């Protein structure tokens, strides 16, 4: 019996994830995200030419410099640039593209039918969430792995640490997607989901400057408030800084604190979304 239920739950989860993929496939926003990734890959594949013998780099067929370029440094700079683009803009675009996937499930004539099936409410929401993370993960992996391959083949430099940017970008997207899910469940508004998620990204970046800001703040309570807020919100800025440290300088950074505090934020927000979703009337 338990086994039957387990098989059935697995089947349901796979069906919900596959449905999320199909809905994403029908949305132009996801195709736009994929197209931008492809465009970036094509830039490295065709436009950027690296002459290993002479050490020259040309863009659009025009040599950018006449002096010899340190190819290794150029590769690391490229990695850093792509990682930052993916981490900030990729996450933003992924949130924008994903924001409609939760409210669409909550449309009155659709949710009533889904809820009539022998599926628990948390399973319905988690199927969407996991499907969404997998779609964005697939896009991130496609972008980073292909660029890594292109640069590796062109230069012979294979720096595996660049691939960590997939995990970092996907992690921060997963955390912010919890906010999208929460706002989606509460308000059923895709636009509000984007607004709140982007606001949290921005606030997190500002709060990340705490070393500087805390010194500038005059009162003790405002310093404590700043510190408290810093610990509550996901560490978008700190993770980006740690990623850059690793890629550019190959230095071990403090990953642990930003990851666990952000993960706790994500789990708490997602749990709240599941709790509200479980108790809502449709």
């Amino acid at each position, binding site marked *: 019996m338990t086994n039957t239920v387990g098989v059935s739950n697995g089947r349901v989860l796979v069906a919900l994830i596959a449905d999320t993929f199909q809905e994403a496939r029908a949305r132009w926003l996801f195709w736009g995200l994929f197209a931008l990734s492809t465009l970036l890959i094509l830039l490295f594949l065709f436009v950027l030419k690296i002459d290993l013998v002479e050490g020259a780099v040309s863009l659009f067929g025009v040599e950018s410099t006449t002096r010899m370029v340190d190819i290794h440094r150029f590769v690391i700079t490229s990695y850093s640039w792509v990682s930052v683009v993916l981490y900030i803009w990729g996450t933003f675009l992924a949130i924008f593209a994903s924001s409609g996937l939760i409210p669409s499930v909550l449309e*009155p004539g659709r949710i009533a039918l889904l809820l009539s099936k022998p599926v628990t409410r948390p399973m319905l929401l988690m199927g969407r969430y996991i499907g969404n993370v997998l779609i964005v993960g697939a896009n991130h992996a496609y972008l980073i792995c292909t660029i890594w391959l292109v640069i590796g083949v062109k230069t012979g430099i294979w720096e595996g640490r660049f691939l960590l940017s997939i995990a970092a970008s996907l992690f921060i997207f997963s955390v912010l997607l919890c906010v999208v899910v929460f706002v989606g469940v509460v308000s059923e508004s895709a636009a509000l989901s984007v607004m709140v998620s982007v606001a949290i990204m921005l606030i997190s970046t500002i709060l990340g400057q705490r070393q500087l800001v805390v010194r500038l703040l005059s009162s003790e309570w405002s310093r404590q408030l700043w510190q408290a807020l810093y610990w509550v919100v996901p560490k978008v800025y700190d993770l980006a800084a740690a990623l850059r440290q690793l890629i550019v300088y190959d230095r071990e950074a403090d990953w642990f604190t930003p990851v666990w505090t952000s993960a706790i934020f994500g789990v708490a927000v997602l749990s709240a979304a599941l709790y509200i979703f479980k108790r809502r009337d449709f």
Partner: protein
Amino acid sequence: MQREDIALMKEQNVRGDVSLEYMATEYALEAESLCKVYRSRWRGREIAAVSNLTLCVPEGVKFGLLGPNGAGKTTFVKMLLSAVIPTSGAAKIFGRDASLAEARRPVGYLPENHRFPTYLSGAGMLDFYGALSGLGRSERNARIPELLKLVGLEGWGDVRIKKYSKGMLQRLGLAQALIHRPRLLILDEPTDGVDPVGRREIRDILNGLTGTGVTVFINSHLLAEVESFCDYVAILHHGTLALQGRISALVMGSGYAITASGLTDAVSVALQERALAAQRNGGGSLEIRVPTLEAANDAIDVIRGGGGLIESVRSESSSLEDVFIKATRQERAA
């Protein structure tokens, strides 16, 4: 039906008073003192959509839930399916707590104003909902062509849903509800917005389920549709149960019409005193309407005792519409 009514029917069945059709080994649906109160967020105002509703649907019957707009029908159905959480009371599906996901496994549901995912094809949609209903891939692959054929959508399986007409969508919705061979089919306004031909097709598909043991629960405001298809009916009004019973029993029993001639003035007066209505016909005959069988026999005794001739006696039946209007008016008056 109330539990007591069902228990009485079972007892009568043991005595051989009622047909086996009444007999239900199990209830497909049970609602006990179900209430739903909506509270407005800011003002704190309360609106009772469903109040203290107790209703049992025996297994294998065709049951119609009627009521004017806003009577609480859809809220009631959604509470059965756990889309709406009851304020108080309990609901059971085949004896299991309706709030459990497993309890909904034997249920096929077609919602009112459904929105099927337009990015899917007809076959894709059936595949998705089949998987959610617990069917394996091989079962789904076998079942989908069967159902598309059943609902007359052969050749449309690979076409995106957004190209479907309203009637086709409704038939596809019905196929979706039937994909896992449910024991209970709940249809919320199944023919709403469908043209007469489409309605007929849907009715034919539903008639095809007769004798399969599937309980069909139809929520509708179309009285003729319910009257022609269902065995039992419950009428909701202002969130409460106004009337329930077997349709044949409800539409009967509105009285008897007796036509008699050769009546003296004294007999005529005596009859008019007993009658709900009296009317002189051509040829000197008098037609009276009496409410009960006892009153009809009493009137016949008066006619025969006065030397009159009985030309005809017939049982008067009313339409479900009459029953509906009467029930909702009485409820309003109460």
